[in-house]
């Protein structure tokens, strides 16, 4: 059975007990993203601290509705990115994207991606990649908006 390779224990754990869930104040940008195929949705807020490109991801909070993969993925992401410099976090995000597009060929760099390497199996199921990316794309969008805002204020 291939199911276990897709649904690793760590994914099911995050799915059942998501981290950082719930919308919190303060935040610099909020976005809503939806997966048009299934209607899965996420509302995600990003709070940055510090100046310009040196800013740090102070908080990621979210509310979401979706499958185990999309739920676990946003939870893992929040764990991973909170506290990182924006530039670093963007790089992690790019790496995760590359992992998702690897069609199972890539195992993921655990030092960089941490628990997110558990999603390597998803990349073999094209229909599920969007699920895994939903939260990440929302974060990228929200962060870009927050950075823009900070830039236009500064």
């Amino acid at each position, binding site marked *: *059975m*291939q*199911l276990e390779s*897709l*649904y690793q224990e760590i994914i*099911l754990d995050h799915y059942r007990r998501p981290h950082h869930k719930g919308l919190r104040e303060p935040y610099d940008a909020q976005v809503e993203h939806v997966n048009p*195929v*299934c*209607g*899965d*949705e996420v509302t995600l807020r990003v709070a940055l601290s510090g100046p310009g490109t040196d800013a740090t991801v102070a908080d990621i909070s979210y509310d979401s*509705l*979706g*499958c*185990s*993969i999309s739920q676990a993925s946003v939870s893992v992401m929040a764990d991973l990115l909170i506290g990182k410099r924006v530039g670093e976090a963007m790089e992690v995000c790019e790496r995760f994207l590359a992992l998702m597009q690897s069609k199972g060929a890539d195992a993921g760099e655990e030092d960089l991606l941490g628990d997110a390497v558990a999603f390597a199996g998803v990349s073999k*199921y094209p229909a*599920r990649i969007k*699920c895994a990316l939903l939260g990440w794309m929302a974060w990228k969008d929200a962060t870009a908006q927050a950075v823009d805002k900070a830039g236009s204020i500064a």
Partner: protein
Amino acid sequence: MSVVADTAAPARPLDTDAVRADFPILSRTVRGGSPLVYLDSGATSQKPRQVLDAARAVYERSNAAAHRGAHLLSEEATDAYEGARADVAAFIGADPGEVVFTRNATEAVNLVAYAMSNAATAGPQAERFRVGSGDEILATELEHHANLVPWQQLCQRTGATLRWIPVTPDGRLEETGLDELITPRTKLVALTAQSNVTGAIPPVAEIAARAHRAGALVIADGAQAVPHHRVDVTTLGADFLVLSAHKMLAPYGIGVLYGRRELLEAMPPFLTGGSMIEVVRMEGSTFLPPPQRFEPGVPSVAEAAGLSAACAYLNALGMDNVEAHEQMLTAHALEALAQIPGLRILGPATVADRGGAVSFTMEGVHPHDLGQVLDERGIAVRTGHHCAWPLHRALGVQASTRASFYVYNTPAEVEALAEGIRAAQRFFSA
């Protein structure tokens, strides 16, 4: 069901072994050797050898631009194309001149919607198709996006208002309140002849009669009805009926718009180009009578021949037998699924006025996850909102899992589905 003409002949059980032998894809295995259990015919049906052979025979023997050449191949292609038109017409009880070949059901709905906005700048004979501010289009919450978004867009183009018939908690049309919804302002009623999610079969003839009394036109979405039941346009009551060949054993690339003759005659063109014109000058053009007026471009003759072969295949099985077979599978599925704790059927719980699409949700297991477990076992279902998002919203769910049946499905496959659902439940509650 109400869209079926009466018949005295008792249903004869389908010989599914023989049927399955006609479908090459059904003998393949998936995901590490599981036999394929294809329960996604609502999305697209599989195709029997007979259909693939008929299409291929055109390509290998008689391929040419129908209606365009003066040579033998073109004559043969024209015969195949017009023969297919006659066969499809007979299949739905229409005259050949009332059958317009389109690309699919989606294009057929768009054809009518755009012809209606084109009526604004067409001659006086197009008067009855004109809509504008103050006019209303009445859709339903049960619709597939293909019979909803084109009407939203027509309203956006013309200033008309979209209203809709709501659904009941079991996914049928809510018929109380129709009198307030169908009024002299209503120009057109768009409704499905069978829901692709709940399987509900609305009383098209009744609603059409009311609409006609109010002076409205009626378009029925037959994409899920025509493949599965005997549909006869003379009793259906709708002015227009659309369908997609690929959902009824036939190839992609071809669909049908049926329209009552005098309506097609008065309706302005939609897609324009070659073969639909009477005279073309740089200054302006005039157009052929229907059905040619609505069929620009080189005809998809091989695909039409495939559709004709599909009608023949279904006729040979007997549409009453097809319906009875699916009803048997649906009853079996409703029963088996009802026994699974936490499972909610979206749609009628019995087979009365209900076709073979069985959608459901499952407590604690998201449809995507459920579909994944089923797929791992070789069972192909659809997950998501099935292009009927407002319906899902109305039923208070975000997404669902759908099993849909056709002539090649068996009770054993229904049982495999039920067992797969239980396995998913075990996996995610572990």
